[in-house]
């Protein structure tokens, strides 16, 4: 019970913590680079956290009903929908945020960027938080499980949050240019991961056809090893992805890589504006 809850909490918290860290670093960068014309307040994270926790609790409450929808594949379909909306907002962030940042409409653009970040974090928390709540609610109903499950949860959550904090401060210690580059690369991986999960969930629900396995690296790096889980949270590593999953992963990454925000980070205007 202990080790199971360590693994579940570690995976879910790590995924959310890494996403939040990257978005917070991007907020800092926007603020530092376009400070005067592009005012972003970091307080958005508090709204996102509060709304996300409330959303996770609500979603966990209605999950039993949701799972009965669409011939008992409701949970898979709704989860993939949540992922799809997240992906949409991530793409919006990378395509809309940087354009015309010196124009008169910067305040509206800043608001759009903040709104996108709030929605992305909110949905990540709803997704991961509801899974954690359902798991903890289920296993702690037996009193002998409470201590091992809760201690495992604290250790898993502690490791996940610590990784998030270390990543955040690690990224902020880099030069603006490199921090921006790493953040956007991670954001591209996050998008790939989300796209791959959408395919996996819809395949499970029989809404998408099964396709052959693209490759098998289970022998080289098992998915359930600590490194495997860390890589899953960081770049969406899967040992045996299907061909459709791999294709969608690549496509989602390409959408971000060809977005204006990414092009801004890798040579371009940033180098001229930021190096002080």
């Amino acid at each position, binding site marked *: *019970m*202990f*080790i199971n809850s*360590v693994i579940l909490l570690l995976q879910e918290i790590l995924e959310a913590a890494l996403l939040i860290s990257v978005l917070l670093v991007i907020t800092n960068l926007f603020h530092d680079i376009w400070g005067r014309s592009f005012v972003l307040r970091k307080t958005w994270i508090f709204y996102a956290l509060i709304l996300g926790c409330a959303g996770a609790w609500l979603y966990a409450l209605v999950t039993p009903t949701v799972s009965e929808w669409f011939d008992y594949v409701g949970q898979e379909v709704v989860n993939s929908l949540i992922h799809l909306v997240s992906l949409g907002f991530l793409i919006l962030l990378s395509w809309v945020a940087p354009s015309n940042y010196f124009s008169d409409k910067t305040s509206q653009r800043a608001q759009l960027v903040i709104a996108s970040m709030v929605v992305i974090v909110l949905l990540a928390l709803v997704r991961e938080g509801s899974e954690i709540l359902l798991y903890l609610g289920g296993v702690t109903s037996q009193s*002998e499980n409470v*201590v*091992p499950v809760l*201690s495992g949860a*604290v*250790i898993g959550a*502690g*490791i996940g*949050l*610590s*990784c998030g*904090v*270390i990543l955040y*401060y690690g990224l*902020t210690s880099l030069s603006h240019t490199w921090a921006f580059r790493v953040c956007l690369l991670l954001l591209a991986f996050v998008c790939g991961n989300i796209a791959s999960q959408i395919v996996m969930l819809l395949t499970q629900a029989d809404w998408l056809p099964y396709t052959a396995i693209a490759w098998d690296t289970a022998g080289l790096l098992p998915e359930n090893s600590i490194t495997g889980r860390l890589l899953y949270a960081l770049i969406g590593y899967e040992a045996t992805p299907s061909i459709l999953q791999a294709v969608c992963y690549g496509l989602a990454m390409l959408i971000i890589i060809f977005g204006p925000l990414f092009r801004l980070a890798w040579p371009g205007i940033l180098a001229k504006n930021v190096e002080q």
Partner: protein
Amino acid sequence: MRSIRLFLVASILATLTLFNFVAALQGYQSSMEEAEALFDRQLEDLAAIVLNIDVSGEVEGISLGNGILFQIWQSSELLAASSGSPAESILEFEEGFSFVNFDSYRWRGFTQFNPSSQRWVMVVERTDLRFILAENVVLESVLPILLGIPLVGLLIWSIVSLGLRPLDKLSTELKKKQAHDLSPVVYENSARELEQVIQSTNSFILRLDEVLEREKRFSADAAHELRTPISALKIQLHNLGEEIGSDHESFQQLQSGVERMQHLIEQLLSLYRTTPEKFAQNCHQVDLYQLVQEQIAQLYSSFENRNQILELSGDEALIEGDDFALQTLVSNLLSNANKYTPEGGKILVSVCEIDSDIVLSVEDSGPGIAEEDRLRIFDRFYRSDLGGNSNREMPGCGLGLTIVAHIAELHQARVVVEGSNFESGSAFRVKFRKKK
């Protein structure tokens, strides 16, 4: 603004938590393996004990504890078994450890053969019970690490706060300093790391004090020294006017030149008079509306000469300020409006309360100020070109708005330049804090 305290506490705590928790996890895994080995040895010992049981008498109903069963076999005959044990053999007739499933549980078993008595002993133990027992023991050692983290967090916070105290003290010391206080920072028993900062700050303050003093002395001396010859010059000019006639062109140019010079000197003097130290001495409650009324009365003839329509609106508005400095501010704004508004134009002056501010507005129907000039017009001696006409033709020295901005800053007020509500023109708004 990033907090050093938050960075230190969060990053140290995160690193400690990460290493402690990963170590706890590693410790848990190796302790569980160790516990398994221990349980296996216990199973072996039990088998040895069971082997020595005397089976000649009644052995039915022997129990080795919760979740542990045994059987003693000899040539396919069950000699003895613990209560709850099935009738058939629970393990293979093969020496060593193995796993087996029966009775809806998974069991860990050990089989031993005694060649002298030709007996097989089989001992099995429920794996779930073994696991729970082992886990409970191991978790006892993990729990203190978990419970200790909040305490460690508090300790780190206190240590970091203690370490940053010299920095906090220095920043409080600097914050306490008034704008005009240019005395060196006195900071005893400072940290070695801060010595250089304090030394550099003090040397900077000293240099600044010297420069300011020199500048102050220069403008004061220059203004005073120039005033006397200008007064003499004006008397001579008056006499000259009587002699050659005041409508002589060269005489008029000379007179306007002398007037401009006098104006410049007066402005330089006001700049000197409104220094922070003088301001602190002269600060008291002022009714801004009344002060504006008086200034308009004084300058009314200039507006009348140019047929300008001047309107004043507002009500009593109390602020903290220096009477003389405020008179200069209002008179500079009014003179500017008078100069830049064409003949017959309109000027609207208002003193009103907006939110928690007292706002003095001077709006005119002149040519207005281009957006790119709006920040620069407050620079010393800067004069913008208005409406395509060279501003240089206008009388003035480029110090009026510098003085306005300077006085506003002393009063902690903000000056905003916008387009006026007339078809063209500019609006100067000075937002003062209301007196509480």
